[in-house]
Every structure is written in structure tokens, then in C-alpha cells.
């Protein structure tokens, strides 16, 4: 394959930047990386220096400034931009600008219209419903009228009572909101009106739109994902299986991801887990086909204890945990799959070149997110200097980190304190769990902060939770 006509701007930092640089290596694609002053010592800067060609590294003022990225892309002669995750991933305006500016670039992501359509909670929900894809019971359009809201809330309470849910809950959220802002739970129907008014006023102040969504609040569920991959034709999306991301921090940040999503052959479930997995895959593909989805993406689901799946949202980007799905997948029997490389290859316009039938899965993958934080103190980030970072290598282990091992490393305070991703593979759940623990026990991670306190990490939390993997 010939990628010499292209050059990729990596509009991200840290671990994902590293993975994109490596993927470029696999694709024989030249690239340009960017960094900010705080990140000068980061691993991705070192790797870019080592592997990059001419005009392959630029210092910019901020990863959040689209203008910096465009200016660097033009200066370095880039033809495409990879947003990674966070920053400009899922930003339809950025994608639109890339596609519509005078000097056009390719955006390694779905087209901006798809990003916009699926980036909107209400739109996604309505699209799903129009295709008979199950969604969380409740309103699928913003409610402005108090009487109507009251009626819907009442119906949701009654609906839950009919299903013998002992503590029915209703969720009230600003339809224009996101990221956990402007959301409130209601357990008492009499309190609904005051909560509704509060959220509506908040939404008006914050988002200039007083529309409110009213939904059933589902508790006790597993968080599953379906990995979708499609080429630019948008006509033949395939899936790379399911993941279970139920183990999270108190702030609902993922900490352990496992592929596949359930293990019906070795564990007991109160529902037909195999059917749930195949259902959510089918639903996801139906939607992807319907919108003409044309790059990688993730459909997020919640599955209740009764085995009901509900679509939560669609992430129109590569995710941190893509590696764990790739780890168990085989294309025509061949392993060592890199979904980021696939994403770039397809984003640049190549055809998929295989069908769903060519994709098979083998074994179980576990991904640990190693983070400097204090799980016992509501996962507060720890900031300081890492002095020693080491682990035992193994053929079943992939460790991705932007933290240099050769010298001490000061954690920058501007970004998420992710230190490393460890992906462990086993031929079955039991072996994967054992290997996971083996890795965690071999880990050496020390350091201290300005006031001389020792480094805190979530390694123990990860080990404790390894036991409950895939159990529901």
C-alpha cells in the first residue's frame, strides 16, 4: 500500500499519540506530532523525534486551539489529521472546518455530519427508536411544558412499579447539557416538579435552551460496548466484538475493560447473555448502516440485571480501550490487529478488504488503566514525580505508556493522570485473570511529590477488581 502521498498530523498527546505514531510506522506513513511546553518531556515527543522525518514535531500553545493545529498542518504539509480521543475527537465543528477550509484535509474520523448527528443525545435516541433499537424509557425530545413533564414522570414511575422495581427513580436532565452537568435524580414523585423547574432554569441559564429530558434512572447494570469499523463507502460496516467496561471509578471513569462483553460459557447469568451480546451487535450494525457510518466508532450500551439492553450513546472516535478488542480479534485467522492503523488506513480512503465472516475472536482480553490516583480517597489524582516504573514483560502482555522508563518523570498537571495501559491476553477467562494478577504483582511504581508523600496508584484497586471481572 502506498501512503507516500499522505502525511498525518497527530493532534493529541501522551499515550494515544504514541500509538498513532506506531500505527504510522506500520502503514509507512509520515507524520507530524505536536506538543506543548508542559509536555516537552513526554514520551510521544521523544518518539516523534526518534521516528519522525522533516517537520515532524512542533511546539504549540495548546492542544485545545484548533488554529494551532491547522497552522502546523499547513506548515508541515500534512494532508490528514488524527484527533485521537478527547480534545477534537467528536467535535463536528473541527471536522467541518478541516473539510471545508481552503486547504482541505482528511479527518481520521467519521464525516462531520455523522459526528454531529450521533453527537447529539436526542438525535441518537430518536434515530435508535425509529429503527426499533431499544433506548432508556422516557422522553426522546426536550420537554418544555411542566404539565407534560409531570405526566411523563408519573408514567415512568408507574412503569417501573409494574416491573416490580422496588425503588423507582426518574432522571431529569438538561437536553442541551452533557458531561454530567444539569442532571438530577428524583425518587419521590411529589418532588418532581421542583426538580424539573430547577433543571429547566439551570438549562436556560447555562445553555440558553430550557428543554429537559425525563428518563427512567436505571441502577444495577453492566456497561457494554460494541466496536464498529467501516470504510469511507459507509456501506459495509463490521464489528470487532463487544467489551465490558463495568469496573469504573466513583467518577464513572473506566478502570478495567474486558473483551468479550460476557462469558456465558463459563459464568452463570440470570439472562441469556449470548443473545444479549448478539442483539446489541445487530442493533449497533443496523444503526451504523442506516447513517452510512464511515470510520471506527463505539456503540455504548447498558444491560440491566434482567438482560434488557438500552443504547446509551455512540462515540464517533477511537477509544482508549480499542486495544483490548483488537487483542482477541483475528482477521482470516491472523492476529496482531491494530485498530488505530485500520482507522487511519480506512480514513485515508482505502477499502475495508474483508467482511464480517473473515473476523473471528479468540480468548479473553483485559485492559488495566494504570493511574496515579488514590482510589480510597474518591480517586483523587496524585501529582508529583515518578522515580521508578518497571514491570515484567511477557508475550501475553502489551504495555502502552508515554512515561519514560529511563529517567524520572514529572506528571504534568494539565491533563488526565493516566500513566499506562496494560493489555493482558489469556486463552480463557481464568487464564486472563491469572495473568492480569501476575502482571499487577510484578509492577514497580514509586515516586514522591513536593511535600515528600509517596506515589499513590490504583494498582491494588485493579487487582481487587480482577476477581469480579465479567460477573453480573
Amino acid at each position, binding site marked *: 500500500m502506498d501512503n507516500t502521498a499522505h502525511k498525518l498530523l497527530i493532534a493529541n498527546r501522551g499515550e494515544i499519540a504514541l500509538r498513532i505514531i506506531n500505527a504510522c510506522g506500520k502503514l509507512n506513513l509520515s507524520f507530524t506530532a505536536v506538543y506543548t511546553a508542559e509536555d516537552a518531556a513526554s514520551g510521544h515527543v521523544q518518539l516523534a523525534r526518534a521516528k519522525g522525518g522533516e517537520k515532524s514535531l512542533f511546539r504549540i500553545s*495548546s492542544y485545545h486551539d484548533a488554529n494551532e493545529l491547522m497552522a502546523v498542518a499547513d506548515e508541515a504539509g500534512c494532508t490528514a489529521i488524527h484527533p485521537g480521543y478527547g480534545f477534537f475527537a467528536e467535535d463536528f465543528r473541527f471536522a467541518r472546518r478541516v473539510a471545508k477550509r481552503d486547504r482541505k484535509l482528511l479527518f481520521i474520523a467519521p464525516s462531520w455530519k455523522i459526528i454531529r448527528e450521533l453527537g447529539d443525545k436526542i438525535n441518537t435516541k430518536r434515530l435508535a427508536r425509529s429503527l426499533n433499537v431499544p433506548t432508556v424509557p422516557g422522553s426522546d425530545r426536550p420537554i418544555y411544558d411542566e404539565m407534560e413533564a409531570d405526566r411523563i414522570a408519573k408514567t415512568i414511575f408507574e412503569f417501573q412499579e409494574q416491573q416490580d422495581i422496588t425503588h423507582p427513580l426518574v432522571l431529569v436532565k438538561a437536553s442541551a447539557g452533557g458531561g454530567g452537568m444539569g442532571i438530577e435524580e428524583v425518587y419521590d414523585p411529589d418532588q418532581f416538579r421542583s426538580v424539573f423547574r430547577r433543571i429547566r432554569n439551570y438549562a436556560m441559564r447555562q445553555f440558553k435552551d430550557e428543554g429537559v429530558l425525563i428518563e427512567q434512572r436505571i441502577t444495577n447494570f453492566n456497561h457494554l460496548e460494541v466496536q464498529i469499523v467501516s470504510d469511507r463507502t459507509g456501506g459495509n460496516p463490521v464489528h470487532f466484538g463487544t467489551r465490558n467496561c463495568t469496573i469504573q471509578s466513583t467518577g464513572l471513569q473506566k478502570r478495567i475493560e474486558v473483551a468479550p462483553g460476557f462469558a456465558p460459557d463459563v459464568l452463570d447469568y440470570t439472562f441469556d447473555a449470548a443473545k444479549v451480546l448478539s442483539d446489541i451487535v445487530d442493533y449497533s450494525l443496523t444503526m451504523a448502516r442506516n447513517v452510512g457510518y464511515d470510520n471506527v466508532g463505539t456503540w455504548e450500551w447498558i444491560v440491566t440485571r434482567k438482560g434488557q439492553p438500552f443504547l446509551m450513546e455512540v462515540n464517533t472516535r477511537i477509544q482508549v480501550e480499542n486495544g483490548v478488542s483488537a487483542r482477541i480479534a483475528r482477521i482470516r485467522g491472523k492476529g496482531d490487529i491494530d485498530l488505530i492503523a485500520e482507522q487511519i488506513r480506512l480514513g485515508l480512503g482505502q477499502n475495508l478488504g474483508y467482511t464480517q465472516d473473515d473476523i473471528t475472536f479468540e480468548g479473553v482480553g483485559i485492559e488495566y488503566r494504570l493511574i496515579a490516583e488514590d482510589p480510597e480517597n474518591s480517586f483523587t489524582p496524585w501529582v508529583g514525580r515518578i522515580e521508578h516504573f518497571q514491570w515484567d514483560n511477557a508475550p501475553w502482555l502489551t504495555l502502552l505508556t508515554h512515561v519514560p522508563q529511563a529517567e524520572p518523570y514529572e506528571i504534568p*498537571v494539565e491533563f488526565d493522570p493516566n500513566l499506562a495501559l496494560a493489555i493482558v491476553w489469556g486463552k480463557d477467562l481464568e487464564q486472563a485473570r491469572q495473568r492480569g494478577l501476575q502482571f499487577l504483582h510484578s509492577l514497580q511504581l514509586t515516586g514522591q511529590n513536593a511535600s515528600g508523600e509517596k506515589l499513590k496508584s490504583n494498582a491494588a484497586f485493579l487487582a481487587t477488581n480482577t476477581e469480579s471481572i465479567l460477573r453480573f
Partner: protein
Amino acid sequence: MINISQLLDEIKSSPYNEIVISTPHTGKITFADIKEGDCVLGPQGIWKHQPGTQLATLERERNFKPIFAPDKGEISLVHKKLEGLFAEAGTELVVLRHMLTRDEVQRMILQKALHLFRAPERAKYYFTPEADKKIRASETRTMTVRNGMELFIMSRMKREVPLHYSGPEGVIYEIYFKYNANLEIGAPLIGVCSPAHLPVIQDMIARVQTEWFEKTE
């Protein structure tokens, strides 16, 4: 008690400051008509609303942004070789030799006399919205702070936590941090002056006003 005379003497022995002007972001550089040895002005006017001497123009995405001298001084270095080139963010353009003004000396000495509330962590700091509103709206030195008052938002690792002021009650006399800039641990955030201390401070200001003469170039 602070020995003002000694402090003033110390400052007088080296009354200059080096100011490095760098590109705020990437872009193509065009220098203004400046050369080493030129004297430039900082922002002018009662409210400092007129910008200082233009040093260069930075063009990015067809937006031409002037870069002005932040303060009065003599140009000691111009990186003329950058003319017409694309520069990274934070590229050094011009170095100014700046003679300390009376106000700056006053600030330096005040920093020793006021109660300084310092940054507890390396992070970005903001005033809480209520405090910010008050400070933006009113004249400086009217906002009173009390021990335990929620005054700042500390932002790091994408988390924002409230920060409470601790120290004596008094008015915010000086603000030492800038919007959206990272502060090192222990960097002063605000200087607070308690009412009882006010005469002392005013006395010090009077000393600086009478004993520090700005050279007019």
C-alpha cells in the same frame, strides 16, 4: 519589621529587569521597524488602554496579530533571522532591558510586606465567579477577604476544586496571578492588607515614592 532602606538599596544596585517577548502561538513572523538599542513603550493612558510599541506581527490562519511591547525599555536583542519564518509557540523574538519603575519597586516591596496567600499546588487558579464579578466590577483594593472564605477555584487534572482563603482579614491589595496561567507551588496569589496594617503599608509606599526616581530616557 522590614528594612525598607536596605531593600531599596538592594534594588538600586541592579535596577533592571530582562523582559523576553515570545510568540504566544505559532505563526509567521514579520518584525516591525525595530532594532537593537531602540527604546520602546509599554501600554499607555490612564487605563493602560493604548497598546505599547508594536514589535512584530504574527500571522496565523490569515489573522494578523500585532505583538506589542509589554513594558517600557530598551531593545537588547532582536531575533531578526526569524523574519518571514513560521515559528513555534513560545519562540523568543525580542529581549527588552527594562528599568524598574516606581510602581514595580513598590510592588516588589509590598510583596514583602503584605500577607501573601500562596498557591498550595501547581495548578491554574481563578477567582470564584462571585469574587470575580466583584473584583472586575469594583475598583481594586475594596474587596475584603476573611479567613475561611471561599475565594478561588483551583484547576488541575481537569478537576476544579474550591480553595478557601486562610490568613488575616483585610482587603486584597495586590493580585499576582493571571487568567489561564499555570502557577508553581508556593507562588503568591494575592497580597492582603489588614486594616491595622494599612498605615504601615501607606508609609512604605510614601518612602518608595520619594526615594525612587525613574530615569527618563
